[in-house]
């Protein structure tokens, strides 16, 4: 039972950063600016939230700094990708690399391999809901998580509403599906692309804060370990639909939880279990693609 509870709790725990990235990436995906920089923005969120909290001793400032920096990165991405019409994939990868490099640079200046906050610890961030906590299984799903965890699950519904029931969502989708008709309607297409990217960077900041500050109060370089790319895979699988894409994010959370929990019992071969999330994602992506193109009889790629 404890093992099962562990897996369920960890699934929620590991799904959250991916889920937030998915929610952030969806609008950019729908607006036809594929945001590969999710990974880098998330790392920036982790880095600056912990760095600023460490320097000032104030956690709220850390939250604000992370969101601010991610917004600036989002602006840079949008400026180069939308206004200057550069190749968004290369820009995204460049941003991923630059965040890693800058974090490494600063860590080297501080002469340490990681930044650890000593005035607070991860247990302080967890919210225990009194009665529900005691119920088996449900308790581990609902209770004992951080604030951003709860926010992220509420956001699935909010994002769905924003995308399908508001003017903004419809305009973003029009811009992505057919730019010319959007222009003929007099829409400022660049504005909607900017907003889509910026919304994404806001959610990535939250993902980064959750990953580093809330869960462990520690930052090590490259701690995002490809979660941003997993999120992009989830977006592809769900074809940009908030509910479906979030579902895939939770599946990947489950895969990660399995890999973590199984590797506790694996001994020397523990490292091999780390591969599970990446392999699961590749398989899911393939299956979704096969289903999508099952009746596709046209020759070609």
């Amino acid at each position, binding site marked *: 039972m404890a093992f099962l509870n562990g897996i369920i709790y960890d699934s929620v725990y590991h799904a959250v950063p991916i889920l937030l990235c998915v929610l952030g990436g969806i609008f950019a995906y729908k607006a036809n600016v594929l945001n590969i920089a999710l990974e880098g923005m998330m790392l920036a969120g982790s880095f600056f939230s912990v760095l600023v909290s460490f320097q000032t001793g104030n956690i709220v400032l850390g939250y604000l700094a992370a969101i601010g920096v991610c917004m600036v990165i989002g602006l840079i991405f949008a400026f180069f990708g939308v206004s*200057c*019409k550069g190749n968004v994939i*290369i*820009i995204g990868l460049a941003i991923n690399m630059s965040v890693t490099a800058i974090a490494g640079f600063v860590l080297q200046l501080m002469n340490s391999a990681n930044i650890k906050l000593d005035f607070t610890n991860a247990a302080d961030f967890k919210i225990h809901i009194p009665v529900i906590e005691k119920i088996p299984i449900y308790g581990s799903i609902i209770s004992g998580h951080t604030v951003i965890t709860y926010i992220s699950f509420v956001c699935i519904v909010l994002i769905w509403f924003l995308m399908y029931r508001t003017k903004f969502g419809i305009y973003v989708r029009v811009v992505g599906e057919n730019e010319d008709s959007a222009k003929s309607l007099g829409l400022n297409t660049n504005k909607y692309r900017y907003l889509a990217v910026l919304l994404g960077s806001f959610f990535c900041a939250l993902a980064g804060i959750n990953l580093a500050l809330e869960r462990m109060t520690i930052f090590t370089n490259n701690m995002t370990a*490809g979660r941003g790319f997993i999120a992009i895979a989830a977006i592809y699988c769900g074809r940009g639909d908030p509910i479906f894409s979030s579902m895939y994010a939770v599946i990947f959370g489950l895969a990660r939880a399995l890999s973590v929990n199984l590797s506790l019992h694996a001994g020397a071969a523990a490292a091999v279990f780390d*591969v599970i999330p*990446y392999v699961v994602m*590749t398989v899911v992506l393939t299956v979704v693609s096969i289903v999508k193109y099952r009746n596709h009889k046209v020759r*070609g790629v």
Partner: protein
Amino acid sequence: MKKSKASYIGPKILNTLLPVGLAFFIGGIIILCIGENPVEAYSMMLGKSLFTARGFLNTLHYASPLLLTGLAIAITFKANIFNMGVEGQLLFGGFFAGIAGASLNLSSSVMEKGICMAIGMACGVLFALVPAILRAYFHVDEMVVTLMLNYAMIKVLEYLSSGPFREAGSGYVCTPTINESAMFKRLGIDNSRLTMFFFLALAVLIVMTFIFMKTKLGMQITAIGKNPDFAEATGMRVRRKIILLMCISGALAGLAGSGQMMSEKFKYTLTFSGTTGLGWDGMLIALLGRHNPIGILLAAIFFSALKTGADNINMYTSVPKEIVGVLQSLIILFLAVQFLDERYGLKERIQKWIGRKEVA
């Protein structure tokens, strides 16, 4: 009006040099911020590695795997395919080339080297085949798959090098050192590290240039990059071409990895491919070299000079050598954007500009 090809070169070169200049400028500001002199730091970085004979030969030595990874990425970019798994393919190839080099014991040193490199290339191809087949037959986005599988590969190799293949007596995680007969010996010119591997890489570059400029395959790949639907309609087998191209790219990455193993590292450690990773450096080189063989050669030498220079900067100033990573990513960022429109030649542009001034 028909224009000669030469008139396009001006803006092309400017479009390549401007991002480098901008990146160095921003890097300079960062160096200023931590209280060092940027001019001094840059001259220390490039002076020794480009303008002394021994330093330059060392630069060439470190440029050899970069040449191959740059080429591996450039050829896939040409067909509008994104093989971002060069890093993983390189590590995989390098690892097993190292294992082969340590366990084989052949009398002929040439044959042993050949076998090691063949194994490295085969591993690279094998790893590139997965995303290639998924892309060609199941429409799976190859970029996402390769990006993900890199992480999986790093984890697997971490396990293999700390578990089954670990060198028993060593204090840190590494595989056994390869045999002497599998090593590329230093040529000993000016006491530098230069080995035959550089010339091998150069030869591969020339052969690949010939293939991509002059043969049917090269033309077809360029056509696929420009418009895959049209290529398919004219009867090219686009799927097979994509798989072939990914295999070539994987083989080049594997060769780069085995070369790194046999000429520089001699055993697999967790920092086998350096801080930014040779595969990622390859992306910078492909972009900076504009997918052009001479460009790739120059870009590889330039970037290798930066990297070797970074060790100097670390030694003599308080600037961390991670500054190279910052410069690298900034250059890539600026290279993604075209600053000048390349449709007009530089000469016409200046004439136009002067003409406008005279009117005003």
